[in-house]
């Protein structure tokens, strides 16, 4: 029972990942790609969490911490670059 529900949840995350990759590929603007990359990171964090819940193994917890800390760096720097480039 529990595994079925977890599989359904994993399927939902997979849909989110596919949608994010579709948006990264299609664009149309660079900011769309940043948003999609953020969603991709969030979905990866959630999927790692589901994996930890399935296996009852907490080894991946520092990975979640690192992703939560540094996911912001990419989107902020690219967003900064985007708005600067359009000023000129």
């Amino acid at each position, binding site marked *: 029972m529990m595994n079925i529900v977890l599989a359904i*949840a994993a399927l939902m995350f997979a849909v989110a990942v596919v949608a994010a990759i579709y948006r990264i590929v299609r664009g149309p*603007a660079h900011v769309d790609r940043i948003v999609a990359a953020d969603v991709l990171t969030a979905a990866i964090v959630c999927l790692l*969490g589901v994996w930890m819940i399935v296996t009852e193994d907490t080894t991946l917890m520092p990975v979640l911490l690192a992703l939560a*800390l540094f996911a*912001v760096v990419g989107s902020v720097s690219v967003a900064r670059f985007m708005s600067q480039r359009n000023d000129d």
Partner: protein
Amino acid sequence: MDGLTQITEQVGDGLAVALVLVAGLMSLAAGIGLMRFPDTLTRLHAGAKPQVLGVIAICTAIVLRMPSFPILALASLVVLFQMLTQPIAAHMVGRATYRSESFDKSTLILDELAEEIDEAPARRKAGKPNLKPGKD
């Protein structure tokens, strides 16, 4: 005693699975929003849902499934940093979106930033600060 711990374990697992399902629904909504919404600002709105609520739900589920203090500490750190950093990212992306004008301006009801930007050069020439004193 043994039966009681078994029952609490089962309740914790059930809650954990329910929370994972909540996070899955958040991610699904974000995915559909990313696919279907018309411009960047609406996609940003849809995409920000799993980044905070989904991660909170998953971290709570992890703590409920494997209750121990180190895991609780790490999970609350993950949630704390996610809640600290994701608003910054969303704000910067929204700012970049506004500046690169990759959104549908006709959908805006009120655009206070455009008024500020229009008046900024005159204010700068007059030696006043760039921003109007707060209206609120």
